[in-house]
C-alpha cells in the first residue's frame, strides 16, 4: 500500500511557532523509522496520518484520498492502526474484549493473542498486566482492523532492554504477516537499525535526513570512525589532567581531556566522544 504524504501545519511548540512540512512517500509494505529531537513534530505527523489532527495538504493511501483540499477522512474511515506511547487500553475490558471491541473477529483475536503469547492472559484486565504485556495487547488491538498503515509512537520507550528486544521481533513478525506499511517513531539507533529499512529524521518540522539506517545513523564525518554522542555529567581535575564523565546511552564513561578543552566544557553539554588514531577493539568476556 503506497502512502503519499504532502502536508503542512503550523505548530505551537515549546520553542515557539514552527511549521511542520512533510513531503514523503512510503512504499508498500515498508518499515520506516521516524527519528529526531523531541518537539520536532514526529508524534504530530502520526496523529495527522491517523486523522486525529488536521493539516493542510494531501494524504493518499493506495489511490484513496485520506486528506485533500481540506477534506479530511475521519479516523474511523481510515485503515490505520495506531499504537500509543502509553498504550491507552480500554481499562474496563479484558484483554480479549479489547481486541473484539475493535472488530468482532474471534478467530483473528485468538490468533493474535496466540502469536504474542497472551492467550493465558486473555481474560485479565489491563490493570493486572505488566508494561510489556500491555504493549502487546495494544499492538494486537491496533492490528484487529487489518490496517494498511500501522503507526507506532515510541512503542518501546517504557520497557526494559530485554523486553524491547522480544517485542521488536514480534512487531517485525506481525508487520510482515499483515503486510502493513509501518511508520515508527523511535529515538533508539540500535532499534532503528534492527527494524527499519529506511530512516527519516525530522528536525523543527522539516525532514533533514532520509536514507537507510546505515546512511543516516552511522557517523562518518572526518576521519572519525568510532564516535558516540553523549552528555557531560561532571568534570573532575585529577593531578595534571582533567577527566570528563560522559553519559553515552545507558553507559557512563570517563574520558581524559586536556585543560583547554576541559575549560570549554559545560555540565549537560552534548558532546561527541571519538577516537581518531587508534582502531577500536571489541573485547568479549
Amino acid at each position: 500500500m503506497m502512502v503519499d504524504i504532502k502536508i503542512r501545519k503550523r505548530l505551537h511548540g515549546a520553542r515557539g511557532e514552527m511549521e511542520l512540512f512533510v513531503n514523503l512517500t512510503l512504499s508498500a509494505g515498508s518499515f520506516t523509522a521516524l527519528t529526531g529531537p523531541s518537539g520536532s513534530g514526529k508524534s504530530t505527523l502520526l496523529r495527522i496520518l491517523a486523522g486525529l489532527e488536521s493539516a493542510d495538504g494531501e494524504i493518499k493511501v493506495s489511490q484513496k484520498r485520506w486528506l485533500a483540499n481540506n477534506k479530511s477522512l475521519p479516523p474511523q474511515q481510515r485503515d490505520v492502526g495506531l499504537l500509543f506511547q502509553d498504550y491507552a487500553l480500554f481499562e474496563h475490558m479484558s484483554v480479549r474484549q479489547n481486541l473484539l471491541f475493535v472488530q468482532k473477529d474471534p478467530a483473528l483475536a485468538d490468533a493474535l493473542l496466540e502469536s504474542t503469547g497472551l492467550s493465558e492472559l486473555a481474560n485479565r484486565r489491563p490493570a493486572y498486566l505488566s508494561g510489556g504485556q500491555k504493549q502487546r495487547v495494544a499492538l494486537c488491538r491496533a492490528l484487529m482492523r487489518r490496517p494498511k498503515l500501522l503507526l507506532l509512537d515510541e512503542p518501546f520507550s517504557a520497557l526494559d532492554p530485554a523486553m524491547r528486544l522480544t517485542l521488536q521481533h514480534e512487531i517485525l513478525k506481525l508487520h510482515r504477516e499483515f503486510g502493513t506499511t509501518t511508520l515508527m517513531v523511535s529515538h533508539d539507533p540500535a532499534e532503528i537499525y534492527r527494524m527499519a529499512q529506511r530512516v527519516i529524521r525530522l528536525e523543527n518540522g522539516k525532514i533533514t535526513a532520509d536514507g537507510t539506517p546505515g546512511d543516516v545513523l552511522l557517523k562518518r564525518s572526518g576521519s572519525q570512525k568510532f564516535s558516540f554522542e553523549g552528555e557531560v555529567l561532571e568534570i573532575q581535575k585529577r593531578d595534571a589532567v582533567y577527566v570528563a564523565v560522559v553519559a553515552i546511552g545507558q553507559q557512563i564513561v570517563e574520558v581524559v581531556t586536556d585543560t583547554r578543552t576541559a575549560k570549554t566544557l559545560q555540565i549537560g553539554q552534548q558532546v561527541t566522544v571519538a577516537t581518531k588514531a587508534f582502531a577500536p577493539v571489541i573485547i568479549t568476556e
Partner: protein
Amino acid sequence: MSSIAWTPFWLSFKLAFVTTAVLFLLALPLAWWLAQTRTRLKPFLEALVSLPIVLPPSVLGFYLLWAFAPDSPLGAFLKERLGLELVFSFPGLVVASVIYSFPFMLQPLQSGFESLNRHMLEAAYVAGKTGWQTLLFVALPNIKPALLSALIVTFAHTVGEFGVVLMVGGSIPGETKVASVAIYEYVEIMDYKNAHIYSAIMVGISFVVLTAVYLFNRHHRRRLGGA
C-alpha cells in the same frame, strides 16, 4: 399514634427518581461535549449551568413561578400548545428540579470525562467507533464512580429540595406536597410529634440509600483493582 401518611415520601422519591432519569439523559451529552470542546463559550456555559448552586432557591423558584404562570408568554404557550400547566403541578416540580439539580448531575460527569486518558478515546475513534459508541462503551464504563456519584447526589439533592419545590409546587396533597414541605407544614402548625416522625423517617431512608450506594461503590472499586 395516628397512622402515618406515606404519600409525601412516595412523592419525594418519585420526584427524585424522575428528575434523576431526565437529568441523566440531558446532562450526559452536554458533559461529554463540554469535556471535549475548545470553544471560548465554555466558561459562560459552565457558569450558566452552575448558577443553581449559588442562587438562593427562592430566586430560582420565583423566576420559574413567573415563567410558568399562565399569563406569561411561556406559560401561555405551554398551556395552549401542549396542554401543560407547570405551576402547582407534579410536571412543574420535575421541570423545576431538573433545572435546580442540573449542576449536581453535570459536574461529576464532566470532570469524570475530563479525567479520562484522551488517547483511550482516540484509540476508539481509530478503531472505527463513532462518538456515541465511544461515549457509551468506552467513556461511560470508565467513569463509573463519577457516574454513580452524579446519580446519587442528584437524587439526594432532589429529595432534600425545599425552597424551589415550595414556591413552584405549593403544597397540594398527593400532587406536590413532598416530604420536606409536609414537615415544614407540621412545624408551622406546631405539630411537633408528626414533624419528628417524618423527619426521623427521612433521616432513616436517606441513610439506608446512601449506605447502599457507598457499599456498592467500594465493591466496584475493589473489582476494578484500584485502577
